[in-house]
């Protein structure tokens, strides 16, 4: 494997999995308590605002994971590092699941708030495209048998799909959309009250830990596959 010693990584990831699971459950419990009970209602949306504490972190994580996969894929494509491709592959399932959660919770929030389950506005459509790219990426891993071509094809899918990422981010600023613009701004004050920002941040941490946990499980599975079936089986 060159860069890393596979069995050492296997031992380490296996050991930390339990700690991350416990830590995740702790953070999730605090997050849910804060999101569902301790945080206030919104002046306009009432209790529907609580959907946001699942929706926004899911959307952030799905975008973050796709960017990470694309970044790793660029390195893989140029430097042919096989270990990085297994890392990229192992992140994809949780990224896909969080994209679906963001779409579904957005829809559930949209019905009582906007008055519609779905709107073909720029933000929602580009998020759907992100979901389709995740699906394409995961399917490509299953379809192509040849080791060299599967690495190239999946890398290219994630790199091409990454062009969509800034479009998702800035869609609400570039065009009129039904979706509201970002409440959390880097350069100026956020337009979200502190009491609502806290559960949002805790839930984001919980979802990030969950992604890490699923990643480690998937990564270990991939390593076992390589061990038992040889390096050809990526």
């Amino acid at each position, binding site marked *: 494997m060159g860069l890393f010693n596979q069995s050492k990584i296997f031992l380490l990831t296996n050991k930390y999995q339990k700690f991350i699971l416990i830590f995740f459950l702790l953070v999730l419990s605090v997050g849910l308590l804060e999101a569902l009970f301790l945080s206030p209602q919104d002046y306009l949306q009432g209790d529907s605002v609580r959907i946001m504490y699942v929706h926004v972190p899911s959307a952030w994580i799905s975008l973050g994971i796709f960017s990470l996969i694309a970044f790793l894929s*660029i390195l893989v494509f140029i430097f042919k590092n096989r270990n990085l491709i297994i890392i990229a592959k192992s992140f994809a399932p949780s990224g896909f699941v969080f994209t679906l959660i963001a779409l579904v919770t957005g829809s559930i929030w949209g019905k009582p708030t906007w008055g519609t389950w779905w709107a073909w506005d720029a933000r929602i459509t580009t998020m759907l495209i992100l979901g389709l790219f995740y699906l394409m990426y995961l399917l490509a891993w299953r379809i192509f048998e040849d080791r060299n071509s599967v690495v190239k094809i999946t890398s290219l899918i994630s790199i091409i799909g990454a062009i969509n990422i800034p479009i998702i981010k800035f869609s609400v600023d570039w065009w009129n959309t039904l979706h509201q613009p970002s409440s959390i701004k880097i350069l100026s004050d956020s337009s979200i009250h502190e009491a609502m920002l806290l559960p949002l941040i805790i839930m984001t941490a919980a979802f990030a830990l969950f992604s890490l946990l699923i990643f480690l499980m998937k990564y270990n599975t991939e390593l076992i596959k390589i061990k038992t079936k040889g390096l050809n089986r990526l």
Partner: protein
Amino acid sequence: MYGKKVKLRALFLITLILSLTLIVFLVLYSLKENVVYFLSPTEIKTLNEVKKDKIRVGGMVKKSSINIINDEIIFIITDFQNEINVTYSGLVPNLFQENKGVVAEGFLEDKNYFKATKILAKHDENYMPPDLNKKKDE
């Protein structure tokens, strides 16, 4: 430092990303008017012709402009530069209120008069507890 192949692969990726980004940019730029979900009253005023197609108008519900006559709701959408009169009969979402964002879907009768077939409330990016909002109003 790196092999020739590595440099070629890097060059390939750069040209791929660059060309695709340019294509996406061109497509989105030329489709600008169709990518927007709704037009503002000002954009309606500057239309060359009143189209028969279904369109969406968005903006703020003008303060104390909501009138309910029989089953019809009549209100004014404003973007603080121009206004448009909207009539609609049917259910409106809970968040449909004065001084709040709205998107109306329907047909233009002329540049000042819009017959809506569907009303969507547009939520803004502000989130706050109820008592805080009362304080702000006072």
